[in-house]
């Protein structure tokens, strides 16, 4: 733990310095706030791009451990979950592949140059104010160029300090415990340093054995010989996490700034696939240690009446240590990844209804490892975007053109293309046909691509040379309607329905490149996705103190594999539904509040899926549905406020796999105690 002490001291010093620099700029004249988060239903209605958001009470009530759990309630999202608290959790939005989803933490993208996938299990909901998902990009043009550069984006908005009348501190202490031997204390301390500067400190420690029972039952419908039914305990799923964050929020004349320091340290076991094994054969003793540090700052300011600017900077350092003891080989792999990011966004209002934005971003990634024959890849990426928006009372149009410029270098030059330059456009529009009705029609078209990740280029199986990869392209078309209204005084409803068509070409897939053992990544895939997303919500105050709210989501996805095949007649994967995408999926969330009581019930359904594009019985994964229930009660004792919550997850104890051979836990419990003062 000595290292942690050092880190805390370092964070405090650095932030003191940052605060000092900005404090000089304090101006108590009228502050023009350019609010990042205006969390109202009205805001969602104005979005041109389909957005789904969980925030406030609904997010708080949600019995979920991490951001990944919250995202399951969005339509069009498939979560890949390898089980348990420590298991890897990634999302696939509208079937385009996990690497196409950008994840933004407080406005700055979380990069993963190594594999392009962000493990959402690592981000806790404790200090989260809102989780939003945008298909395409956020429909605000005043943002960094990187925000234009993903096929879909998840925004994790952390809590901005808020204080009770006349108070300068807000402290929340939380303790969670429950199944899997979970111990999870956390502290949130918000402090007003001066009228214009506020700080937030959040520290979390998590420890869990990750042990749970699972069951595989296979029936024999043919005859009386029966099938098999086996129960075992999931082991090596233990996890220990320490995370600390310190953020400062400040206001200056005509703007605001914020800065954040983040440190994450974890050690976890990786339980392997549950497959046939002889006793003691595969003990699944793979382990991983992660250390992640980042510091990010941004400043927004109104320069003149019609001109705004935003500066953003980030440095991130990742250390990964992977240990695997198979019977023939002991792996001790270390990776370090550096990430430097700078951005400048500038918006000009030209006419009252017309504004223009120009943003330029730069990112540098470098990776190092102790594995033999490592290539030490480095990547410089520049993004420049020109965006414009026209805003009339009933019609909104936005258009942007993003230029991406990539330069790579690696130790071993093997005649590989190192420079890439691409221009990708986006256009979005929203129209309100009747001024008196809050009913909108919207549509967007977006072209985007992703660069192959370092893993895909340099760490493919068994050190093969697979650096001939091109970027992977995604093209998206979307049309939809949004409605919000109210029936009577106390009853609000809203809903959105979108239909879309996505096409992913040059999809990067692992393919055999030679004799066995040797695999290569190739740009061979072609996937066409047709889908429908439906999201409906309602909230009401039935009488006096009883409040009800509900959300229902449904997704239909037909995601077909059009990867060219040599022999059509013999190939059953062609036009098959791609791996792990259900045709039908949905969720429902109900919340009820009565005085100091809160109740939340959630239901998730995922239809049958296939592990591969060959939709055959061998590859089928059964559908699953879970019911989760949470009940909480608040108390007051003098100036202290308590809240106790009991969660029961997977009420019906359904045995299910999200990823085949990675069993999920049955019924499990969690107890949460909050102390606020």
């Amino acid at each position, binding site marked *: 733990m000595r290292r942690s002490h050092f880190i805390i001291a370092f964070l405090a010093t650095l932030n003191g310095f940052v605060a000092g620099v900005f404090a000089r700029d304090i101006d108590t004249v009228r502050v023009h706030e350019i609010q990042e988060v205006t969390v109202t239903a009205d805001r969602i209605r104005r979005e041109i791009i389909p957005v789904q958001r969980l925030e406030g009470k609904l997010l708080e009530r949600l019995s979920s451990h991490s951001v990944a759990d919250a995202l399951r309630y969005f339509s069009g999202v498939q979560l890949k979950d390898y089980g348990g608290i420590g298991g890897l959790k990634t999302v696939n939005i509208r079937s385009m592949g996990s690497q196409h989803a950008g994840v933004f933490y407080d406005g700055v993208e979380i990069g993963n140059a190594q594999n392009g996938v962000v493990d959402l299990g690592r981000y806790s909901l404790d200090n989260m104010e809102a989780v939003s998902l945008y298909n395409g990009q956020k429909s605000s043009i005043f943002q960094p160029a990187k925000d234009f550069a993903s096929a879909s984006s998840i925004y994790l908005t952390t809590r901005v300090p808020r204080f009770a009348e006349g108070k300068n501190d807000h402290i929340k202490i939380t303790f969670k415990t429950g199944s899997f031997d979970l111990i999870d204390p956390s502290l949130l301390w918000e402090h007003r340093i001066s009228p214009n500067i506020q700080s937030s400190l959040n520290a979390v420690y998590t420890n869990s054995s990750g042990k749970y029972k699972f069951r595989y039952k296979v029936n024999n419908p043919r005859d009386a010989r029966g099938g098999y039914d086996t129960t075992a305990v999931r082991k090596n799923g233990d996890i220990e996490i320490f995370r600390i964050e310190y953020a400062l929020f400040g206001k200056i004349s005509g703007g605001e700034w914020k800065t954040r320091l983040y440190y994450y340290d974890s050690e976890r076991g990786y339980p392997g696939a549950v*497959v046939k*094994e002889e006793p003691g054969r595969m003990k699944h003793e793979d382990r991983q240690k992660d250390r992640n540090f980042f510091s990010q700052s941004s400043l927004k300011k109104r320069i003149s009446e019609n001109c705004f600017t935003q500066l953003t900077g980030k440095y991130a350092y990742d250390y990964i240590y992977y240990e695997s003891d198979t019977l023939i080989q002991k792996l001790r792999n270390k990776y370090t990844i550096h990430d430097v990011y700078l951005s400048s966004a500038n918006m000009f209002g030209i006419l009252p209804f017309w504004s223009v934005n120009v943003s330029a971003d730069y990112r540098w990634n470098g990776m190092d490892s102790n594995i033999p024959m490592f290539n030490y890849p480095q990547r410089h990426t520049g993004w420049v975007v020109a965006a414009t928006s026209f805003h009339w009372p009933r019609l909104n149009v936005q258009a942007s053109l993003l230029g991406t410029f990539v330069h790579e270098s690696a130790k071993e030059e093997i005649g590989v293309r190192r420079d890439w330059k691409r221009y990708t456009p986006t256009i979005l529009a929203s129209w309100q046909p009747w001024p008196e009705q809050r009913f909108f029609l919207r549509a967007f078209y977006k072209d985007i691509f992703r660069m192959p990740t370092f893993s895909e280029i340099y760490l493919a199986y068994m050190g*093969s040379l697979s650096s001939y990869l091109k970027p992977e392209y995604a093209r998206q078309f979307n049309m939809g309607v949004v409605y919000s209204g109210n029936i009577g005084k106390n009853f609000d409803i809203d809903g959105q329905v979108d239909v879309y068509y996505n096409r992913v070409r040059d999809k990067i897939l692992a393919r055999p*490149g030679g004799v066995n053992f040797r695999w290569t990544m190739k740009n061979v895939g072609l996937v066409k996705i047709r889908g429908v997303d439906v999201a409906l919500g309602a909230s009401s105050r039935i009488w006096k103190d009883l409040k009800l709210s509900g959300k229902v989501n449904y997704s239909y996805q037909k995601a077909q594999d059009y990867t060219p095949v040599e022999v059509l007649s013999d190939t059953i994967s062609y036009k098959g539904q791609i791996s792990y995408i259900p045709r039908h999926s949905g969720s429902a969330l109900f919340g009820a509040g009565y005085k100091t009581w809160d109740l939340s019930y959630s239901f998730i359904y995922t239809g049958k899926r296939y592990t591969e594009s060959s939709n055959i019985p061998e590859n089928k994964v059964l559908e699953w549905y879970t*019911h989760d229930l949470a009940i909480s009660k608040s108390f007051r004792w003098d100036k202290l406020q308590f809240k106790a919550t009991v969660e029961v997850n997977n009420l019906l104890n359904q045995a299910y796999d999200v990823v085949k051979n990675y069993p999920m836990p049955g019924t499990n419990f969690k107890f949460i105690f909050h102390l606020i003062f």
Partner: protein
Amino acid sequence: MIQRIFYFGSILFLVSVSLFTSCRGDEEEIIPPGVTPVAPGESGPVKGFFLLNEANMGSNKASIDYFDSESGKYYKNIYPTINPNVVHELGDVGNDIKIYGGKLYAVINVSGYIEVMDVHTAKHTHSITVPNCRYIIFDRGYAYVSSYNGPVSIDPDIPLGCVVKIDTVTMEEVGRVAVGYQPEEMVIRGNKLYVANSGGYRVPDYDHTVSVIALNDFTGEQKRITVGINLHRMKLDNDSNIYVGSRGDYRNSPSNTYIIDRNDMVRRKLDLPCSSMALGGDSMYVCSVEWSNITLKNTVTYAIVNTKTQAVVSRRFITDDTDQQIVVPYGIAIHPETRDIYVTDAKDYMNPGVLYCFDRYGKRKWAQVTGDAPAHIVFTRRSLQNPEILESN
């Protein structure tokens, strides 16, 4: 009114959802065997063959297919139906299949065991634990299994490989001998066992040797023959020459084929890439799949080596252009009586492959979709007599 409908609707929804989910109609079920008539029936001493599909690590999808010559029917994935009570079926990465003394043996690499079945029924009889087992061969009542998991020697992190000796009556291990790194295929010539050492997990320090073990005492390696880099395949011809396939290092040294003569000397280097081999009479059928960084494509080669002259006599044994359709020729087998040629196409290894049957002149007779990564074929002279399978249609 609308509000009431909403509340009522919500309650109805909750109740129906609860009822609907209390019993999931669709339970996990034994995967049925697929039956396809692929060929007209043929009679002869060879009654059919078993095909072992490797499947990927962690997939638990290794499977056995059976072809019945007399009816011409192809039975896909027969094991779960015949053995519904075996937990987690066959496991994964099937690596070898052989028949000896009324038993069918399937070597399952990552699951680390040898599945022993009755050859007449394919019913499970034994399973023998051999961690990281690769190939199996038989001699005078004993099975010999190559395994990556031997004793620790120089580098404590990388153990040597070994050959495990198993009594086929008791199905118990009776001894083991350490060999080189990551041993692969074996042949038995006279009283000696030869095993090809790959060193495949020691990139870039591959092994180059064939280990020789005397079977009469089975106490240790008699000697090592230096052959070539990253050895894998091994076949014995009718004149007791040993053909050894080298995988190469995928970078500078290409795959190659060597011949060890009766005096344990490396007699010839054929300059022929080799990823699989099968003997038919005096012809060694060799195919190879190699990735080329120049053409950015797999280079697939087929060849026939005349074992009398030890020269490549043909660069083509599929003569009707079906080879244009084969992405990855992964396994090859020659029918011992008819000399029909069987080639499996592993395609992308993730999805089902295809088995092609050609006549001795290389003309396509039939093709059939298999399990994932079809690779190993063993011909049987006793037809499968299992009612669960034969009656399924």
